[in-house]
């Protein structure tokens, strides 16, 4: 069952990311005001750099573009709590390196991405797509999409 486009769109987890009106996404992390380290998701209220005793984190939006570090696809349905559709639809998963943050962030690949045409090092951008329909609303998630050339 495809999500109903007329329903409200809500992030699968509140506070992890934000959807822009153009369908692009912003990952919401934490940045240490003392050592500038970035954390995603913002798990705790303090800095986890052992050489830093920062005990607060500022809100920060992560870069929306990065380069593909690795990728795969999942051809069998994961167990719960993955909200697998019935019948199961395989999906790709990408690990993308963000240059500014010097970190790698996972995400599903945008639907329709052909992994046979992907190569490590390709430029990727963040979008938001439906993940599942909880009955009342369409729950969305961030995904990585290859940047179209030209």
């Amino acid at each position: 069952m495809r999500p109903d486009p007329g329903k409200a769109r809500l992030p699968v987890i509140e506070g992890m990311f934000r959807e822009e009106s153009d369908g692009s996404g912003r990952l919401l992390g934490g940045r240490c005001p003392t050592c500038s380290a970035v954390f995603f998701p913002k798990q705790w209220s303090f800095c986890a750099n052992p050489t830093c005793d920062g005990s607060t984190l500022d809100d920060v939006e992560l870069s929306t573009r990065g380069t593909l570090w690795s990728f795969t696809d999942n051809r069998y349905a994961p167990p719960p709590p993955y909200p697998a559709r019935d019948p199961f639809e395989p999906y790709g998963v990408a690990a993308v390196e963000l240059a500014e943050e010097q970190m790698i962030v996972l995400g599903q690949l945008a639907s329709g991405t052909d992994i046979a045409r992907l190569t490590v090092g390709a430029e990727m951008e963040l979008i938001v797509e439906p993940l599942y329909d909880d009955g009342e609303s369409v729950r969305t998630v961030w995904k990585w999409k290859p940047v179209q050339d030209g």
Partner: protein
Amino acid sequence: MGDQVVVLGAGMHPWGKWGKSFVEYGVVAARAALADAGLGVADVQYLAAGNTMRNGYPGYVSGSTFAQALGWRGIPVSSTYAACASGVVAIEAARARILAGKADVALVVGADTAPQGFFGPLPGDRPTDPDWLRFHVLGATNPTYFALYARRRMELYGATPKDFAAVKVKNSRHGLANPNARYRKEFTEDEIAESPVVADPLRLVDICATSDGAAAVVLASAEFAARQADTARQVRIAAVSTVTPTYPNTYLDMPDIATDSAIGATLPERSFRDSIAHAAYEEAGLGPSDLSCAEVYDLSTALELDWYENIGLCAPGEAESLLHSGATTLGGRVPVNPSGGLACFGEAIPAQAIAQVCELVTQVRGEAGERQVDGAKVGLSINQGLFGHGSSVIVTR
């Protein structure tokens, strides 16, 4: 050598799907290890166990569960969890207690029952649990990560699915003669090529299954061991490494959705995976060239190749050549996974790291029969558990 703990006995319950309680498996393994040591339950002064998280409270307090099942005797126990590294953290608890002078003989047990298919989180709704989050938000299973690592290896070093298949061929041949292995079937490259893709580039047979199983070892102080009648079969523990990553950990480890950021931090001298064996070598005063054999955690075929480099058998990017040279096959210079590895066992989380040590003990004793590594003197086991748990043991004759 006075500060080295001795393995007096090793025992296992065969891996498989037997439909019993993990306690039954663990008791069989514990009694087997005690019998192998020539000791009884009454000789055990400390019991350390690795927990299982899929069997309710008895699994959370595995040390107490096995102490009760073997017969309450008032001894101190501990129950530790460290994902796939649990067994070695339990071994380290027992070793430390002996080295601290608080026990002469300690029993270490790990046992599990495993669900069919993918491992998944326990029931409940836990957005602050990274392991729950990666399943719910991304559908990122363990094989997803294994596939990301495998693809990375292809990209960096030109590895191919045929290289991965060659690992499976080797391990399936190694396990043929292992009575504790669940799968005793020799795979050919053609059979592997017909196996369905689970997560590209990995096929079903590239990825280890989940199993029921149990393993146990009996450890003793050097002084106690020296007083035993039969010292010829005794094996020494030269090192135990249970290291964690060093910040910033910029490699994508399970179950994280993102790595640490390297901003404002100095990168550690070596990667987390490299640091696991490094700590073991440092403690043992040994190096890769001293190894007779190794048991490495082949959650996937491709991962076995990574471990070759992480434990220093070859330089980064040379694992495929080392494999094809036959060096890591039985009969070669340094056979890897002479037991057959996870490829032939399947994963039984708290038992697996202990089972690796059981195999090394059997090898350096020269009791491995058809899968014996000639003249085995030094063996290393290595694995990595979720949430930054490194584990490595070096045993010597």
